[in-house]
């Protein structure tokens, strides 16, 4: 076995469970109505531009950015706006949604809906960035940070590396894998477009070794593209050792470049910009096809879900989760917890009629046995949490300090560096709720740090 690179500190090896890996991407049928959230990106919520009674087309701008770090939102369907108002998201928080009743499937004429691959890259980088911004592209790897902001480094900072995250290190998830297998060429063009927007840094696509087909497939496509167009000769595909959380931004940068982002620092501080596979496809569609981010791929999976009911769906963003679940045959027997996303970092679904957002990546059914928490025991000081922490923190200590409310010591022990990957709680043999406690302390710590007067 060749010596594959990975991140240097911590990490865990949960079982892969990529059950739906061979399910091709299917187009999800249109529902009767959709609910488009105004808070599906990091930063300020978007401001609705439509009122009840308006008719909209697929891809029409229906909300504008609410601040510098914010994003445009487009209608995923054609039809009539029924209401604009507060509605609960999957966690039960009230968020402004635009409700649209679906009528037909009429698209904006400006969108190129042909399947032809456009490999010619536009020359003007400002034009590329503008297209990405106008089409509402945000990071689909989890944080949903507006992509155009990430691709425009602040003055004085340049990107040496553009890293494409094909790790898909969360168990069960297969949407990125399917995109690499079925939309691989488009992903590569998307990568080249972002490379251009960033003035030509080295581009590395990192893929974990458990997806050898994707590594081979993309390598083949890449050599084909590079033969015909020199613009594709500076993209590299790098296999990575399988380890969670490889797809964490800081971990991926460490794994692919050996550079470590400092505490409270940003990737661009070490000259890196990280984009996920889904985002890269969205960039391709936005720039080459002028298609806004209104569709994404989502995995429906779980051990209790029969194999023939596992799916990878191309869905319109704004379709209720319950509609997708019905299409996949309803809630399977034995499912006691529904996760939006992966089992390590996904969110438990409290409201099944909540809507999908740009960052939705999976509906995962877990059985009670898989997910119910065992009773907490005393800490046996085995140090497994500290060994598992990819940030080199000491979760056992942070939990104690958090319970004592000692924020001076919490800051010294870098509670604010926690990336909430869940490795500590996953590994703890005493079943301690480490991350639950640390997450709250981290939030308080960050508020304390931000409230300090700046010198």
């Amino acid at each position, binding site marked *: 076995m060749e010596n594959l690179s990975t991140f240097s*500190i911590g990490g865990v090896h*949960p079982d892969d469970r990529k059950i739906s890996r061979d399910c091709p991407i299917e187009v999800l049928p249109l529902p009767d109505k959709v609910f488009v959230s105004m808070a599906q990106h990091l930063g300020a919520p978007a401001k609705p531009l439509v009122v009840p009674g308006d008719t909209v087309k697929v891809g029409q701008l229906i909300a504008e950015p609410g601040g510098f770090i914010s994003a445009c939102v487009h209608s995923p369907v054609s039809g009539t706006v029924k209401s604009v108002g507060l509605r609960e998201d999957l966690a039960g928080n009230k968020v402004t949604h635009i409700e649209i009743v679906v009528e037909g499937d009429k698209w904006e004429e400006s969108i190129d809906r042909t399947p032809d691959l456009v490999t010619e890259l536009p020359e003007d980088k400002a034009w590329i960035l503008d297209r990405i911004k106008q089409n509402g592209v945000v990071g689909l790897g989890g944080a949903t940070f507006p992509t155009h902001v990430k691709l425009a480094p602040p003055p004085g900072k340049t990107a040496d590396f553009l890293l494409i995250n094909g790790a898909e290190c969360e168990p069960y998830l297969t949407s990125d894998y399917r995109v690499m297998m079925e939309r691989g060429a488009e992903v590569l063009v998307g990568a080249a477009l972002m490379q251009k927007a960033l003035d030509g840094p080295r581009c590395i696509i990192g893929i974990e070794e458990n997806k050898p087909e994707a590594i081979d497939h993309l390598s083949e496509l890449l050599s084909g593209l590079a033969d015909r167009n020199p613009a594709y000769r500076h993209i590299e595909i790098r296999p990575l050792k399988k380890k969670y959380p490889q797809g964490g931004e800081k971990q991926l940068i460490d794994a692919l470049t050996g550079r470590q982002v400092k505490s409270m620092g940003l990737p661009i501080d070490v000259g890196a910009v990280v984009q996920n596979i889904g985002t890269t496809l969205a960039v391709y569609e936005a720039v080459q096809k002028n298609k806004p981010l209104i569709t994404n791929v989502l995995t429906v999976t779980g051990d209790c879900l029969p194999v023939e009911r596992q799916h990878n769906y191309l869905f319109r963003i704004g379709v209720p989760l319950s509609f997708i679940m019905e299409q996949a045959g309803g809630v399977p027997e034995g499912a006691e917890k529904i996760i939006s996303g992966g089992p390590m970092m996904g969110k438990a679904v409290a409201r099944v009629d909540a809507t999908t957002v740009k960052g939705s990546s999976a509906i995962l059914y877990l059985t009670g046995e898989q997910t*119910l928490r065992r009773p907490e*025991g005393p800490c046996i*000081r085995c*140090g497994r949490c500290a060994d598992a922490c990819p940030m080199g923190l000491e979760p056992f200590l942070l939990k104690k300090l958090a319970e004592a409310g000692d924020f001076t010591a919490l800051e010294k022990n870098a509670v604010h560096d926690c990336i909430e990957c869940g490795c500590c709680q996953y590994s703890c043999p*005493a079943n301690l709720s480490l991350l*639950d406690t640390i997450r709250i302390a981290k939030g308080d710590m960050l508020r304390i740090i931000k409230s300090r007067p700046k010198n």
Partner: protein
Amino acid sequence: MAFVVSPSPHIHAPASTASIMRDVLIALAPATLVSLVFYGWAELLLVAVCICACMLTEWAIERFLQHSPSTIGDCSAAVTGLLLALNLPSSCPWWVAVIGSIFAIGVVKMTFGGLGQNVFNPAIAARVFLLVSFPSIMTDWSAPASISSAWGFSQVDAVSGATPLGVVSEGLRSGMTLDEIFAAHSFSYKEMLFARVGGSAGELSALALLVGFVYLLARKVIKATTTLSIWATIIGISMVFSFINPSSYTDPLFNMLTGGVLLGSIFMATDYVTSPMSNTGCVIYGFGIGLQTMLIRYFGAYPEGMSFAILLMNAFVPLINRFCHQPKFGRAK
């Protein structure tokens, strides 16, 4: 339909406190088996008495004094019991074993708050407690002369075995050189590696202990840091001293294979609760144990020293933890 809602992570690794403790028991199985084969009924009684007394003490304290749910299901009391049994001479009377067990669990573990809170390793502390309280019983290394006599198949006869370290320390005090001592008593390294009479029940066979070590490493129950640090220190110090004066200072291999170094370094010093959390801390801790063991052996009154060294270093663990931390991400460069 209502679904479970809780924060991430939503899955958990299979390991639990009980599964880790069970792994330690499995790792101790080879050494236990060897001691049972050679020491027979007496050893079986000791193992049973220690395990039962430890579990019973924990249960009784939780039931009658703390009024809290019993924790004997986590198997940690059983581990303490087995380790204590393996740290006693096979000739030890059962009532001494009971006193040791009650001390280990009742005083060393439960008074500090139970599992995870004790400062000292309960089995080691109990062994030292018994050694100071019953010196003659604890250094009576007489043992069955043969396997068949150990199990009562032939006439019961015993040899008054002595530990190699005891013989050496005695001999040196009477003015003999090491060569003369070794010539008078036929110690062979081969015997020490496979099965040797004379010593605590658990250290009969170095090989059986090493098998347990490999199992613990393979199951990722312990990291090798502490153990290797102890070994390196003991080998290093004895190499220097035996090179300078081979007639008064024993050599590295002899020191590694005698006096509970393997049992202590593999199973007692690596106890999670009483060893440091960080790798750097484990190196320092291991060095301290090795250094003190060799100081006691070469210059002290007791012939072996491992238990005292571990106990003393246990006391330094909170201090070591205060100053040694794992390297944090993004701070090294």
